[in-house]
């Protein structure tokens, strides 16, 4: 196992060399800064070892935003490369690595952490609970996600990035055609992160089923809770499939089995089937909670109850069922019989029905309302027209015969960006602007927020609209270059310009976070949006025990009705009881680290060393099973003091911030 350092570290490319230096400098800077400001202890005891769902949620969001930066730079590099014909900014190998990591990172390390982060922060508050069902498991989920993300990200400087596409189709992704360890990173890093996600799914199914406060029946849950609940069920149903597929992939690549290879009787299309059996539900895993956020935000800023609540619930249940029945539409062109393609065409198109119902319900929620155009609401509004474009092109793609002409072209790429960006990223932005005050006690700046909004929305359309036409002109996805005779040049250039505007929009968000953290008004009360659901009944930012006494719910939009009918719970000293909370623990972060180390060794095919490191995992499990820490109690006096403090000043001198 003589290490050759020039192969261990990826060398020879100036872009990669620059990022290596950048990463090293950032690391040194961060370590020095933490030491200088003596923040190590704070970081460790307040964040790294926390089991508080709110802090875990915020850390998830941080991971998502940082990964967005990485995935976005990948996207910009791709757009830069294809802006003009026969460009040589990136070579084929580098381009292949860039689009592979762009896809994986955007779906699994941006969309998922941001959504799970918001779920973590909001769901327990919305259902009037003090925490999730399994707080320590929640922390473990988070640290496994971080571990997987870190492992996946180091691939481009250590060992080489995966380069077989985010779908990693076999036989290309096998050892026969992708030697080198790039695709090992894919298999192992996603396995670790996926384990975390699966546990999150289980955690939230139990949380929603068992932790709802008094009176909150299933049909009185806010829509975001509903969609997150259904999402968690899809996670539990589909992630095990991915776990199995990745395990088989790891065996093929690391131990020489033949599940998917072309030699030894392997079946390449088995991978495609397993991948999309997970991968298609995954699309709904990210889009459903986003739909839920939209519902809550639209009803808040239109000042109306969600229209057609029951049909909304039925729709998401329908979508979750259909999501498991459509995976073959990803390979209509594999030579299925006409009957098979017809069946999957119909199931796929059928998804448009519940989705259409939802769109009309949202529109009618706003009808007769009084729509306030906050930044959060603008994002929710922009969702409708943009997502409709993604939706109707989705129906066009679902028609198998027509798909023979669209498959694997830029038309497809345009379609799924029109679904995923308006359907996932816009709602996430809406959610960030909406819940930011609840998380940090101040609002994001509305003016910078509008810059963020307009740049991003215009940039998005300019980037992806041309791709529909390029696809219909025969431009294929994932091609690192094209000749001038194809005539793709001008539209490719427009698209590249759009991506720069898009990036400027994202930069505005980052600036907004920085600006607001420094300058935003801290005196905003506990309910700055005049909102409708329970999370706004607590202090802003939320005290660590969430609710002094658990609220009782009688209606949908519980908090709104409490406000209208003057039923906000008064603070009386004799009603307050001690609150039991779990203690911080180092086990989850320790598990993340050992999973990362043994995963790293497995990626490099140093199997014995990986096995030895895995003993650390068992040790962590063993330690946990002997851990009898029962948590701690928050004392009555402390609760009373905290509560009276924020309630007294709650709405005193609070300006209307959003007119």
């Amino acid at each position: 196992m003589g290490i050759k350092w020039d192969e261990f570290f990826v060398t020879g490319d100036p872009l990669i060399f620059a990022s290596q230096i950048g990463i090293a400098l950032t690391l040194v800077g961060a370590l020095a800064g933490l030491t200088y400001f003596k923040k190590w202890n704070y970081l460790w005891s307040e964040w790294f070892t926390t089991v508080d769902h709110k802090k875990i949620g915020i850390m998830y969001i941080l991971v998502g935003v940082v990964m967005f930066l990485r995935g976005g730079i990948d996207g910009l590099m791709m757009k830069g490369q294809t802006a003009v014909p026969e460009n040589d900014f990136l070579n084929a190998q580098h381009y292949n690595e860039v689009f592979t990591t762009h896809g994986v990172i955007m779906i699994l390390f941006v969309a998922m952490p941001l959504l799970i982060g918001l779920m973590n922060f909001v769901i327990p508050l919305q259902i009037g609970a003090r925490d999730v069902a399994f707080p320590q498991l929640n922390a473990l989920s988070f640290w496994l996600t971080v571990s997987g993300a870190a492992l996946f990200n180091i691939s481009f400087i250590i060992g080489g990035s995966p380069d077989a596409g985010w779908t990693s189709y076999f036989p290309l992704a096998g050892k026969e055609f992708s030697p080198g360890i790039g695709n090992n990173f894919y298999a192992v890093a996603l396995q670790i992160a996926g384990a975390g996600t699966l546990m999150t799914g289980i955690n939230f199914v139990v949380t929603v089923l068992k932790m709802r406060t008094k009176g909150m029946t299933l049909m009185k849950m806010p829509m975001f809770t509903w969609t997150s609940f259904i999402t968690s069920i899809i996670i539990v149903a589909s992630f095990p499939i991915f776990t199995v597929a990745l395990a088989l992939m790891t065996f093929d690549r690391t131990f020489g089995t033949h599940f998917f290879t072309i030699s030894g009787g392997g079946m390449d299309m088995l991978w495609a089937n397993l991948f999309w059996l997970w991968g298609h539900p995954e699309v709904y895993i990210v889009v459903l909670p986003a739909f839920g956020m939209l519902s809550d935000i639209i009803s808040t800023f239109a000042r109306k109850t969600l229209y057609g609540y029951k049909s909304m619930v039925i729709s998401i249940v329908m979508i979750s069922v259909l999501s498991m029945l459509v995976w073959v539409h990803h390979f209509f062109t594999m030579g299925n019989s006409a009957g098979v393609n017809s069946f999957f065409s119909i199931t796929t198109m059928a998804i448009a029905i519940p989705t259409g119902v939802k769109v009309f319900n949202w529109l009618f929620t706003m009808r007769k309302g009084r729509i306030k155009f906050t930044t959060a609401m603008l994002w929710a509004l922009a969702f409708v027209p943009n997502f409709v474009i993604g939706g109707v092109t989705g129906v066009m793609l679902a028609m198998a015969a027509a798909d023979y002409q669209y498959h694997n072209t830029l038309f497809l790429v345009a379609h799924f960006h029109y679904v995923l960006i308006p359907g996932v990223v816009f709602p996430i932005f809406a959610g960030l602007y909406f819940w930011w005050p609840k998380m940090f006690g101040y609002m994001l700046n509305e003016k910078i927020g509008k810059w963020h909004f307009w740049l991003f929305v215009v940039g998005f359309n300019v980037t992806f609209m041309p791709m529909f036409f390029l696809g219909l002109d025969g431009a294929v996805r994932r091609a690192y270059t094209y000749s001038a005779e194809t005539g793709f040049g001008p539209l490719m250039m427009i698209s590249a310009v759009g991506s720069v505007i898009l990036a400027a929009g994202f930069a505005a968000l980052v600036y907004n976070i920085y600006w607001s953290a420094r300058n935003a008004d801290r005196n905003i009360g506990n309910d700055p949006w005049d909102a409708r659901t329970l999370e706004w009944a607590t202090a802003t930012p939320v005290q660590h025990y969430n609710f002094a006494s658990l609220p009782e719910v009688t209606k949908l939009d519980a908090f709104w009705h409490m406000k209208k009918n003057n039923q906000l719970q008064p603070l009386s000293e004799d009603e307050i009881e001690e609150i039991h909370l779990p203690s911080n623990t180092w086990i989850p972060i320790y598990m993340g680290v050992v999973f990362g180390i043994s995963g790293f060794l497995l990626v490099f095919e140093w199997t014995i060393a990986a096995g030895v490191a895995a003993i650390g995992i068992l040790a962590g499990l063993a330690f946990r099973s002997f851990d009898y820490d029962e948590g701690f109690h928050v004392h009555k006096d402390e609760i009373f003091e905290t509560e009276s403090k924020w309630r007294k000043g709650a709405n005193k001198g609070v300006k209307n911030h959003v007119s």
Partner: protein
Amino acid sequence: MKKSKLFLVSLTSIMAVLLLSGCENNMVVFNPEGPIARQILELINFSIALMLLVTVVVFGLFGFIVWKYRERKDNLDYEPPEEHGSTVLEIIWTVIPILIIVALTIPTVKTIYAIDEIPKGYENKEPLVINVTSADWKWIFSYPEQGIETVNYVNIPEDRPIDFRLTSAGTMQSFWIPALAGQKYTMAKAETQLYLVADNPGSYVGKNTNFNGQGYAGMEFEVLSQTQKDFDKWIKDVKETAPKMTLEEYEKMLEPSHLGRKTFSNTHLEWVDHSDPHSKNYTNPEMYDRGHGWPGKIFEDKDNYKNKDGNNDHLNHENNEDMNHKESETEDSHGGDHSGH
């Protein structure tokens, strides 16, 4: 609110501009040159019309509602009514999408079945069988009846059904001639099948749409549709002038490389049929060097034709340079630098 209207206006104008520029581009999918592609286009046009209708209705309703119920200075004390839904309305907007989907389903299923067969009007003509084998990163076309083989171009007679039998020697590709027909995957040890007919003589672009590694972008071929007379003459010329390919040459050809056009007066089908599940493996892991990074191990494969020297754990730089060399010889302008950094 002005801004949301501005947004709609800018969005529609962007779309209009792009639509217009699209028309000038003569998008290939909208210019079919054969009955199969034409049938698909009819379906596409039908779906576009219906979807435009949906889009217009939703956009209109959206614009109207957002505009009419916006918060203004004069309605700040308006408190919206408590409204929970309307069963009738909800049923209406469940039924309408169902009807639209049904309207789309019928022609879709019909077209799926129709393009699986020889197109109408050509049933009486005997189809010309052409075996297509994709390899990294080239297309091999064998004419079993005529006993000839071409690489990276295929000549076909006009007005006669062509029966393509698709397979792959290694990775998975997708065989697509957008002007003539939709695409199908080519997979090793499996056979897929595609019919098409060309209306007129002409030259069309064919390509691979399924990503398969470093040489993917250059994996194009030309389809030349000729009159029957020209086609017969071309066959005759090939048989008289083209060289014969040897097994050794063929195996060399399957190695990862770009090749220009080649023509032979025999076919590889005499040695191997890649669609046969028991056919030999033609994998060359040591030649797929990434150009950087940790090499990992490569497994021995007892069925493989080359993989017997047990020396595959290390990169074979000689082969690699060989590949670069070959590329510079081809006339393919898409080749570029495929050998890493």
